């Protein structure tokens, strides 16, 4: 080795290490910058990205466009029956997905001041049917606390296609089948659901839970169900019929919550936790 060769080799090694360190830092800065930019983009654009596909795929509406429940018709009990979060008709727009653009059932519900729920149940069928079967919600899957509940759908209004359908006494307290004038694929029900609310004891005053499930009992058994709950006092939604890890099935934020997964009809039972508004 020539005199000074060792020092030269040492210098080369130092230069090589320095270059490697510089490259490492440059790579790190580029990756960090890219990931931070991606994070900001994801946060800003997240709701608008094609991933809003959950609405299309699950049949549930997107978090950014949750619909409002149309306000109830004026009646003598308007003050006690008015939804907690009223919505003007011009604001109301049905979400795409199950019950509207896809075969399935879409349930929109909002708590009323008397503890009952104003419910819209929109059914879209893959094939026309000439009779509909209605039944009170089966709340066995909702848990022990609803064991003694006797849910009653009252003030029931039904539209089959564009024709109104008369429901005996305007109530669904037992299973019934109603023949239609002509086969239809689209049915909409509006009703008041009572008897399925249990006050939580002990709990903050007004805290209650209500079990909600479709009353549409006929049609294909493989129909999927999407559910949305509106109301400023709505706190949470649980799906007690699902497996343990999926039971916390709520998404969105009050006053607009929805059930995240698409539910099968056999498991389409939700428990809504909310505060019953003070009487006014």
């Amino acid at each position, binding site marked *: 080795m020539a005199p000074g060769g060792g020092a030269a080799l040492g210098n080369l090694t130092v230069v090589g290490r320095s270059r490697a360190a510089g490259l490492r830092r440059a*790579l790190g800065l580029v990756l960090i910058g890219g*990931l*931070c930019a991606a994070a900001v983009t994801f946060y*800003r654009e*997240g709701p608008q990205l094609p991933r809003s596909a959950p609405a299309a795929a699950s049949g549930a509406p997107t978090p950014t466009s949750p619909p409002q429940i149309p306000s109830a018709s004026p009646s003598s009990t308007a003050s006690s029956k008015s939804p907690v979060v009223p919505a003007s008709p011009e604001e109301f727009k049905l979400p795409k997905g199950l019950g509207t653009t896809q075969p399935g059932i879409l349930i929109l519900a909002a708590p009323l001041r008397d503890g009952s729920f104003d419910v819209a149940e929109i059914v879209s069928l893959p094939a026309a049917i000439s009779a509909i079967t209605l039944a009170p919600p089966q709340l066995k899957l909702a848990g022990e606390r609803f064991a003694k509940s006797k849910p009653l759908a009252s003030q029931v209004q039904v539209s089959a296609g564009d024709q109104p359908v008369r429901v005996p006494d305007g109530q669904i307290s037992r299973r019934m089948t109603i023949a239609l004038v002509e086969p239809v694929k689209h049915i909409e029900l509006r009703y008041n659901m009572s008897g399925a609310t249990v006050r939580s004891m002990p709990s903050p005053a007004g805290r209650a839970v209500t079990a909600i499930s479709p009353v549409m009992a006929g049609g294909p058994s493989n129909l999927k169900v999407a559910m949305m709950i509106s109301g400023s006092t709505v706190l*949470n939604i649980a799906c007690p019929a699902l497996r343990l890890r999926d039971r916390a099935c709520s998404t969105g934020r009050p006053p607009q919550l929805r059930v995240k997964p698409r539910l099968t009809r056999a498991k389409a039972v939700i428990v809504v936790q909310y505060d019953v508004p003070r009487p006014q």
Partner: protein
Amino acid sequence: MTQDLIDLALGANRVLTYAGYVLLAGTLTFWCIVWPDGRKNRRLVILALGGTAAMIIGTLAGPAIQLIVGGRLLGDIVTPLGGAAQLVRLAALVAAMLFLPDIISGAVVGLRRVVALSLVLLIAASMVAQSDAIGGPWEVAKIATTGLHVLATCAWLGGLVALAAVLIPGEKVQELDRLIPRFSRVAQLSVATLVVTGIVHALVVAGGAYQLATSRYGLVLLIKISIFGLMLLMGNEGRKYAARAAFRQSHQPPGVPVKAAGIPTLAVVMGAELCIAFVILSTTSLLVMVAPHP
């Protein structure tokens, strides 16, 4: 793959992420607070890099399992805030991996300490952003308690792992009398923080004492607290044993043969503690699954 297997994979992935967090953030905290000169210790560097790798895998694998294997859609599994938090965490992990040589190029003090602690805070914040602290009533209280809980966890469990990595091989016994008192102070503060924030968080998430006592969430929490108590007892015994060993070591008369029994016994105690710590992380993973949604 069946849903049960997917659930199992997600649970295991969550444990991997928590373990990675404890290793990385715990080692960085250990360097910053307990032993700034410990950056020369090869085992601690391996712990930090291993933790970083585990967290990167866990952060990527969670959504990947649900997207690819579970067939779910991105909108179903991440919120805008949660997704952004995961990307920020990945950025922090890349920084930890690629800039670690710079952080430990000297004693972890001054600017190096600021950078290291900033990384810990950033990673902890990203975990809070994905937790059930977000949303629902008492959001600020939940975020504060969860953040402190997560930080105290890394300081205590991570410090314990780091201490074990340094002391169990028995080559650094002379460090015992310096490290044990420092770590004890950090551990005591961390445990007190864990207890207070754990109680507050559990009550807020469950919605009250009655709901907590009568829920599955409360049952799993009770199991976790029992294991936590057992670990505290063992930790206290291990600490006293290590202090005695350090005292014997430093006051050993010259020429007297060194009794080596102290360190293997300490190793057993600390090994048991680490096993319990792993069980605690697993029960925490289970708690996430059964926690009431806000």
